[in-house]
């Protein structure tokens, strides 16, 4: 057995779609991130035992929940997995307390009451114990669904878009609460989202899914700043992807040609001279020099501003260079202090360490 508490690798075939995810989780907050239609909800349902994979294995704490070779397929009732679907699916005809007690039917009455009351306290739901779900706010509904799922002390908790039903200004607070609860219960929590900001805000581990396949798994900063493929790079908002040729390939500072320009790349690896690399640069990592004196030792590129798309707090700028567009993001105050205007030529600087070599150009 590996150290991972949870391992899944299975495939499930549909007429128009193949789901074949593969990943491991420890007792951490993990986020399954992907575009809509990538297979996120379906993956959760398969893990919970609500959809049956065609083949593969799902292991939790060393026990097989599903194993097509061994013909093991535990029903959802026996998987010790908590599941919170997208709109919480609270039982509308039962009070908050009854909802929470629903999974505790096999406990004696006294311990059941004790567990429910403990969870009501921990989730700050006591004042609402006798209310029906329809009388609760989005956040209270979410806490009730969580309490109900956690009541049975599951070994893994699955949550499908848990913030979709909550007003935007409450989300930050609920995210923190969820992170605290995960630490308290110390079990793996796998949360589904299609929002990059939410994935980043929540994930200790990020599992990126695309067209039914897990394309990258890692710590959130690993995936965010060191995507393995151009597809993941784009999903993560690394919008500048350049094709360069290695001129001097010895680490830690690889010299490359980008068209007629030179780019220095910071990397722990060495590359063969003449080989072609795909590199990615996040738009916020490109800085616009205010004055010649401020230019730091870094890659310097002279580019023409062709488009300014103000986004309120930020500006999304397009610079033309090398017959290609570079996207640059600056904050509004910085934009103002730079006195930028369309058509201007400016010097852009990029730290070698901010240029990421994409290992698997596809």
């Amino acid at each position, binding site marked *: 057995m590996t150290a991972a508490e949870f391992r899944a690798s299975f495939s499930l075939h549909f007429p128009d779609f193949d789901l074949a995810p593969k990943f491991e989780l420890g007792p951490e907050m993990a986020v399954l991130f992907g575009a809509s239609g990538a297979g996120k909800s379906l993956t959760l*349902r398969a893990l*919970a*035992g*609500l959809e049956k994979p065609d083949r593969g294995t799902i292991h939790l704490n060393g026990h097989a929940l599903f194993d097509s070779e061994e013909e093991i397929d535990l*029903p*959802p*009732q*026996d*998987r010790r*997995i*908590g*599941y*919170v*679907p*997208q*709109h919480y*699916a609270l*039982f*509308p*005809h039962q009070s908050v307390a009854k909802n929470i007690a*629903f*999974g505790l*039917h*096999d406990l004696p009455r006294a311990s059941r009451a004790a567990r429910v009351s403990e969870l009501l306290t921990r989730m700050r739901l006591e004042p609402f114990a006798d209310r029906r779900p329809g009388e609760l706010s989005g956040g209270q509904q979410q806490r009730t669904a969580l309490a*109900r*799922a956690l009541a*049975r002390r599951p070994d893994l908790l699955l949550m499908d878009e848990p913030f979709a039903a909550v007003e935007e200004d409450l989300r930050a607070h609920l995210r923190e609460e969820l992170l605290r609860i995960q630490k308290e219960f110390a079990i793996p929590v796998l949360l589904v989202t299609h929002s990059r900001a939410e994935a980043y805000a929540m994930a200790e581990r990020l599992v990126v899914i695309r067209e039914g396949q897990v394309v990258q798994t890692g710590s959130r900063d690993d995936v965010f700043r060191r995507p393995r493929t151009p597809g993941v790079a784009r999903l993560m908002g690394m919008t500048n992807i350049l094709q360069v040729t290695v001129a001097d390939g010895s680490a830690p500072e690889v010299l490359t040609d980008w068209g007629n320009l030179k780019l220095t790349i910071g990397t722990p690896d060495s590359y063969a001279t003449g080989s072609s690399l795909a590199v990615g640069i996040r738009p916020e990592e490109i800085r616009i020099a205010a004055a010649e004196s401020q230019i730091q030792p870094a890659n310097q590129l002279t580019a023409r501003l062709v488009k300014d798309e103000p986004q309120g707090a930020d500006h999304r700028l397009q610079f033309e260079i090398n017959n290609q567009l570079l996207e640059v993001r600056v904050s509004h105050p910085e934009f103002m202090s730079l006195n930028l205007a369309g058509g201007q030529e400016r010097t852009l600087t990029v730290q070698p360490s901010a240029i990421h070599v994409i290992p698997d150009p596809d």
Partner: protein
Amino acid sequence: MLTPLLLSLRVAGLATLFAIVFGVAIAALLTRRHSAPANVADAVVNLPLVLPPTVLGYYLLVLLGARSPLGAWLESVGIELVFTWQGAVVAASIVALPLVVGSTRAALEAVDPDLRDVARTLGQSNTAIFLTIMLPLAWRGLLAGGMLAFARALGEFGATLMIAGNIPGRTQTLPIAIYDSVQAGDLASANRQALLLTLVAVALLVSMRYLGSALAGRKMRDRG
């Protein structure tokens, strides 16, 4: 020796009871199933909706008559269905069954499937889930189906006439008694009997509409 009213109530009451017991079970089994056997079962249950009552009554007569193996066996264990009020119960149950199945099934299928899924991950058996989640959320549909079934059973005429006949005091239900009164030119009786059945029908209709509009729970448009 029973009056047509009491006989009708007994027949329709028992038929509704049978229709609900079997109908809810069948609805539970057919809900969200689309296999070939489920489709065939569904078609068979719904056949009485499109089959003329006299045809149904004729088949029952053939199937349950003393000349058929089933009829002979029933007779041997002391159950007589031809030209008895029990036969009327059988006929009324069969015509009422698809109404209960249809209404209950629609109500069960209207329950958010996530509720059932979550309940399964919470360790409850499918039977417990049906009893504690599905039925409580679908009871209005079941009740509406039961009322429709009672109305249909109470008004049953063609199939009942075929299988149970028209024996005053034994198998003459109210709808048959009206026919008899008109044939005999006893319009006073016919009037009284028709009024009685109309009142029951209107009461059922009003109750069902009340159930239905509470069910729909008219919602305001999303403000956006």
